[in-house]
């Protein structure tokens, strides 16, 4: 937890993920807007192509890492009871890791199952 470990690493990682996310977000918005057909087959074609799958997995990892860093600060700001704070932070981290693993598995399933 940050209040034990010190906040320097947290602060730095929040900025680094923010900067790296900028091109990924622009790529994502432009790509999704340009997807002219959105049916099942074309969505799978898009997600499953090697370059998109790799970029999408990177985007998912980066954005959820950035999200967890931000959410952590909010919890630390507003939850003052130490035990509750620790419980929320641990649960939140586990939930986010579960979501990221599921998402990566889904992308790989599409990309490798073609």
């Amino acid at each position: 937890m940050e209040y034990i470990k010190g906040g320097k690493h947290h602060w730095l990682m929040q900025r680094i993920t923010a900067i790296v996310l900028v091109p990924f977000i622009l790529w994502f918005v432009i790509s999704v807007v340009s997807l002219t057909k959105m049916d099942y087959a074309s969505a799978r074609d898009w997600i499953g192509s090697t370059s998109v799958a790799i970029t999408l997995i990177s985007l998912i990892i980066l954005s959820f890492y950035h999200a967890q860093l931000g959410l952590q600060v909010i919890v630390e700001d507003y939850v003052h009871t130490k035990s509750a704070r620790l419980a929320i932070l641990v649960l939140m981290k586990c939930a986010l890791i579960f979501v990221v693993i599921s998402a990566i598995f889904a992308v790989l399933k599409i990309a490798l199952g073609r």
Partner: protein
Amino acid sequence: MKTHNRPLSPHLQIYKPQLTSVMSICHRATGVALVAGALLLVWWVIAAAVGPEVFDKVQKFLTSWLGILILFIFTCTLMYHLCNGIRHLFWDAGYGFRLEDVYKSGWITLSIAVLLTSITWIFVIILRTTVI
């Protein structure tokens, strides 16, 4: 820590909202909202991995008026958080701390966020109505 219900600063009930403070809390709010947006993306990807029936349900929801409204709000919050995040990075680098600069960058941030959201949705409308 026991707080004895003492008043906490800032007293939001009597505090006059300013561009600076409102934009600051909006950065947090949009950050939290974007977690929901990211979950929406994950839901869409997982649906595509599960099968056509599930995917079509998700797609049907996303193209309903409620789905489009959610996607539009998602775009607004994303562009706001993106632009204001870059504003924060300038502060981290030590620029733009004079009060007039803070207001100026605030208005610039809002304008660019509105512009990017508009461009995105103009392209959505053009591409969706001409191709399909």
